[in-house]
């Protein structure tokens, strides 16, 4: 038999003005199961709460209804108070007689009648409430970070520095991401490698970081706190433990004319190679497609040169399983390819700019290599076609971005800034050169950002033309750039020696496939979706999976790093307890009644329901059933509505509770 206490709040005059609280208290006192019904000035105040606590004890209450403000305001407060008095907090319900009643109905008679009905509903509900215990899930306090760009590096270091183990998976032979190939960085113009490489070394040497490079995540099983991840380590043909990184092998390798990925095809590397001198790990990998041993079956010079006997031509892919409790995705971006992979994408490309056709039309990342001291030209600005120093360079911004016709509507955000940077770096190296920029708008919000762009224009004399370029052709070794200057309102043709395209930032290849493995949502462009754009910017809808860096949307380094630290923070909050405690208001399935139609499995927005089998002691299949993983269920109740037989139900909003409420409305 239930013993319910009703506590009606005056909220000073807020409720009492329009609701006759004393009359209401009297009217609900006789409802079945109600043993006490009192009105009090301020229920949420200390004396109000202690009144409730006293009554819980003295009246041996089994349920409480507080009729006051919105549950969004104080449900937690009252549940906590009840718990202090020894009553299970989930046996407390509220009736919203302020926001939904006294504040919106001025007729005292009507408002009081409505208040009484709202209380009656809550009493009906609470009689069907069950004492719930918070769900606790054990967690493996290790994290997986996918992607070793600056964002992944930051997240991994933050987590590892706090004493937790991190598994970092990077698919290239070295960590570093795009930043490792940048020259100098806006807005301070500090050298990119100088700030990044020490962090890379930290990762390589950190006792808490297990680094898998040249590796990819193949499968993800499990759920928050308890993921099982399979990682494929691609055959590297070099024994990582034996190799000392001395360089004998790559210095001796006869296959030298292979385009360097790190230099974006503008330089060469050997078949056995490290992508760049500061690579972490500083261990080479053999490119099977370039290696003479694999191509012709003879050579093996590297193996002969290696004093450590580290070259292993019979190396195989290795599949490793790692158990982790949280996953941070930091797979970064790629540039809109302009013409290269248009066939496989629905984007229109920019054939009119001649990229891939004219060697002196390069993209922005290539230009970073051209100005970089470690680049193919040793930092001297020379154009790819003939190695001449370009005296006139045209930079085109928004190539692909903000262009619905080309399939990308968003702004890539960083191009305005790096284009300004490029003009400055160019001017600092080619004093008699002239930089031209075609732009749509200049977007330079951020600390010291606009000042930076102004400096490019005012001190370093870049010519900015507002307008688009319609066509680029090549005549007598010059690139003829035809566009308009919309501010002047006239067509503009510039003869350039080099053209740099600031093409749009897109999610890295394979990002959506990875997202599917992780059950993380993504937008139409493939950027991973955060759980809430404002309040949960690094969480995703897959519990225990976080995002940071450019895989979530275009970003510069400071933002990527900030987000990475935020994601690490979220992981560490999770890891601060041995168990994960979750709200018990989750779905459950009556496995005896479940018909195993799995409509709920299809419908659940969180993939929280699995197909399960019930077996007897001999292992014989008794029946199949849907089963909710309380670690994943968020309590939306979609499964309840979808289930025809109502074998699914939702704690806190059970069928029993909800029907009791409706039925109280006679």
């Amino acid at each position, binding site marked *: 038999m239930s013993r319910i206490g009703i506590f009606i709040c005056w909220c000073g005059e807020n409720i009492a003005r329009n609701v006759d609280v004393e009359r209401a208290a009297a009217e609900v006192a006789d409802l079945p199961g109600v043993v006490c019904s009192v009105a009090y000035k301020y229920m949420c105040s200390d004396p109000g709460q202690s009144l409730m606590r006293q009554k819980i004890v003295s009246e041996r209450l089994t349920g409480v209804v507080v009729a006051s403000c919105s549950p969004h305001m104080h449900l937690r407060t009252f549940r906590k108070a009840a718990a202090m008095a020894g009553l299970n907090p989930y046996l407390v319900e509220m009736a919203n007689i302020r926001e939904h009643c006294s504040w919106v109905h001025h*007729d005292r008679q009507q408002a009081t009648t409505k208040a009484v009905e709202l209380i009656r*509903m809550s009493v009906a509900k609470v009689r069907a409430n069950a004492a719930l215990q918070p769900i606790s899930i054990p967690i493996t306090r290790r994290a997986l970070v996918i992607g070793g760009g600056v964002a992944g590096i930051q997240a991994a270091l933050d987590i590892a520095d706090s004493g937790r183990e991190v598994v970092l998976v990077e698919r290239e032979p070295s960590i570093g991401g795009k930043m490792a190939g940048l020259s100098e960085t806006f807005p301070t113009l500090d050298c990119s490698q100088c700030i990044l490489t020490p962090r890379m070394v930290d990762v390589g040497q950190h006792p808490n970081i297990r680094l898998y490079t040249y590796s990819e995540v193949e499968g993800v099983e499990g759920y928050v706190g308890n993921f099982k991840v399979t990682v494929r380590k691609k055959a590297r043909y070099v024994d990582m433990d034996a190799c000392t990184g001395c360089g004998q092998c790559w210095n001796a390798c006869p296959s030298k004319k292979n385009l360097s990925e790190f230099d974006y095809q503008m330089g060469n590397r050997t078949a056995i190679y490290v992508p760049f001198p500061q690579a972490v790990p500083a261990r080479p990998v053999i490119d099977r497609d370039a290696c003479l041993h694999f191509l012709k079956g003879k050579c093996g010079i590297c193996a002969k040169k290696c004093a450590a006997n580290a070259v292993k031509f019979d190396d195989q892919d290795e599949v490793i399983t790692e158990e982790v409790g949280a996953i941070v995705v930091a797979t970064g971006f790629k540039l809109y390819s302009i013409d290269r992979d248009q066939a496989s994408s629905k984007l229109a490309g920019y054939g009119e700019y001649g990229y891939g056709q004219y060697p002196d039309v390069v993209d922005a990342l290539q230009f970073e290599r051209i100005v970089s001291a470690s680049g193919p030209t040793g930092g001297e600005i020379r154009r790819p076609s003939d190695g001449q120093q370009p005296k006139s360079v045209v930079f085109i911004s928004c190539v692909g971005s903000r262009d619905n016709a080309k399939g990308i509507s968003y702004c890539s955000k960083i191009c305005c800034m790096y284009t300004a940077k490029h003009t400055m770096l160019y001017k600092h190296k080619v004093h008699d050169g002239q930089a031209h920029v075609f732009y749509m708008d200049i977007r330079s919000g951020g600390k010291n950002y606009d000042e930076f762009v102004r400096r490019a224009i005012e001190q370093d004399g870049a010519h900015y033309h507002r307008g688009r370029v319609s066509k680029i052709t090549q005549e007598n070794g010059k690139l003829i750039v035809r566009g308009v200057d919309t501010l002047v309102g006239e067509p503009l043709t510039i003869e350039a020696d080099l053209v740099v395209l600031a093409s749009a930032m897109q999610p890295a290849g394979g990002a959506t496939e990875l997202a599917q493995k992780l059950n993380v949502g993504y937008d139409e462009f493939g950027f991973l979706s955060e759980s809430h754009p404002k309040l949960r910017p690094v969480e995703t809808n897959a519990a225990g999976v976080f995002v940071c860096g450019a895989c979530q949307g275009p970003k510069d380094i400071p933002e990527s790093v900030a987000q990475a630290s935020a994601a690490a923070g979220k992981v560490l909050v999770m890891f601060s307890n041995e168990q994960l405690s979750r709200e018990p208001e989750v779905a459950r399935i009556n496995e005896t009644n479940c018909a195993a139609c799995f409509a709920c499995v299809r419908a659940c*927005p*969180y993939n929280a329901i699995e197909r399960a089998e019930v077996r007897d002691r001999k292992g014989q299949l008794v029946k199949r059933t849907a089963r909710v993983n309380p670690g994943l269920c968020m309590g*939306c109740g*979609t499964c309840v509505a*979808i289930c025809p037989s109502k074998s699914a139900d939702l704690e806190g909003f059970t069928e029993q509770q909800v029907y009791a409420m409706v039925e109280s*409305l006679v």
Partner: protein
Amino acid sequence: MSEQQPFEPKIVAYVCNWCTYLGADLAGTNRLEYPANVRIIRLPCTGRIDFNLIIKAFEMGADAVLVSGCHPGDCHYTAGNFHARRRWILFRQLLETMGIDTRRVHFSWISAAEGKKFQQFVTEITETARALGPYQAYREICQAE
């Protein structure tokens, strides 16, 4: 109810916790007055709101039912409202075929910021229900032997 009193329709509103319930809270905070006929039942998500609840409300003598939640794309649980919308499309067709008065079954998206919309919509459906009079047909169904 005595003869002279105007008819006061009974309206049951099933709303989601995160948008429409908060929209109604906002209407309160802004003191936006509306008729006192509506009884709100708070559920986590429109995804949880089953058609049987609509029928139940009519059985309990409701003259109109409102089902309301987050706008598409804003669902707290990402997709509960999309599932709900699909069910409503089918359910409304069934109501039509049964001859159940669809002018008494309302669906809306009202966000946490739309206190004004909540006020206006509830006022409007109360007026509609008042004009339609008591839902006699369903009451007869419930009273028949």
